[in-house]
């Protein structure tokens, strides 16, 4: 084996292993994709995006940006946050399709809906 051939062989091996590495990465990505997420900001006594449509499995996170505490409470008892003071967050993962209305139990004129569909 000539020296030049050895180098080529090593390069080929390196390429092959990096190809394996790349494919491994892509396999990992396909097996466990970054979990789908959505955010709802609470500002000025409103849910800023009151209707949000997401795919099943999406985790929705509410963040209270007001100086006054709020809550995020499902109209049908599906989820209920503790009281969220300024900057506090609440997350819920919507596994199944459906329409989920919610409100702030302190200021019930604040309402929103999460629509989950595949």
């Amino acid at each position, binding site marked *: 084996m000539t020296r030049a051939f050895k180098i080529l062989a090593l390069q080929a091996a390196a390429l092959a292993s990096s190809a394996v590495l790349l494919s491994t990465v892509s396999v990992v990505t396909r097996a466990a994709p970054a979990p789908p997420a959505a955010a709802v900001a609470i500002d000025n006594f409103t849910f800023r995006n009151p209707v949000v449509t997401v795919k099943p499995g999406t985790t929705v996170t509410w963040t209270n940006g007001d*100086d*006054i505490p709020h809550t995020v409470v499902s109209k049908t008892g599906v989820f209920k946050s503790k009281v969220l003071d*300024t900057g506090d967050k609440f997350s819920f993962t919507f596994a199944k399709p459906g329409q989920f209305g919610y409100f702030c*139990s*302190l*200021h019930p*004129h604040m309402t929103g809906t999460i629509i989950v569909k595949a």
Partner: protein
Amino acid sequence: MTDELNDDRRGFLKCMAWAGTGALFAFDGGIGSSIGLDAALAAPARHAAAAPFTFAQVSDSHIGFNKPPNADARATFREAIAKVKALPQQPDFIIHTGDVSQLSRDDQFDDADQMLKAAGLPVFFVPGEHDMLDPDGGKAFLNRFGKGSRGAGWYSFNHRGVHFVALVNVADLKPGGMGNLGPEQLKWLAADLAGRSSSTPIVVFAHIPLWTVYAEWGWGTDDAAQALKLLARFGSVTVLNGHIHQITQKVEGKIAFHTARSTAFPQPAPGTAPSPGPLKVPTEQLHSMLGITDALFVRGHDRIALIDSTLA
């Protein structure tokens, strides 16, 4: 005079007393007469019921609030209590119309309790929505301030001829709605008022206004009309609320509505800001926008005299 005050004729008597002059005026069939206040106070119980008295209202102390415009809601509440203690005529008691705490934490309730005890007066409470935030949805408040009350904390009592009714309109609020009394409480109210003479002066207090001040911000009570209907037959009804951190008043028929200032922070006038969040006034302005209400009850007068004073 005493002889004239028999039960049959009490409905025709209108007694009016002026604390300042120490005289009690009685009108019978349009003919006025007066007796000395000392004599009135020394007279039997029904005379005592006709004596003037005051009570004070504090509201929305939000103990624990520490953001602009008020870094220390404890300090301003302490000032409000001092203001009550300094009133020229000591009130018989204090009512607190809710939002005692910011987040229903034990230390916040405890601090409010301790500060109020410094006034040395009985205190009657109703919860605000900020007092319902413990995991049990209001139990922490009720255990401390709601002894002897029913349901979510409603009750009534009589004081010197006036019937006081404490209502709760912050429990079990409905999505998209405003304040709510609920059927159980309305049923209780109907029974509570049923046996009372229409000449009994009534004072109702609750956290959220019992009339719609501003629906867009939820400043009203969805089923208040049912309560007001039960109150309509009474000759003198005063409704005292908090929640909106500013003075508003209205008279509808024989019912006078009034909301008190907060002792913690002001809120914007309806519709004048994007939201009802705290009005971030400069520090030097804050005390002029916080305050207490002093209520003077004068028997026979159409209205309870309500005197609002600021902490400035």
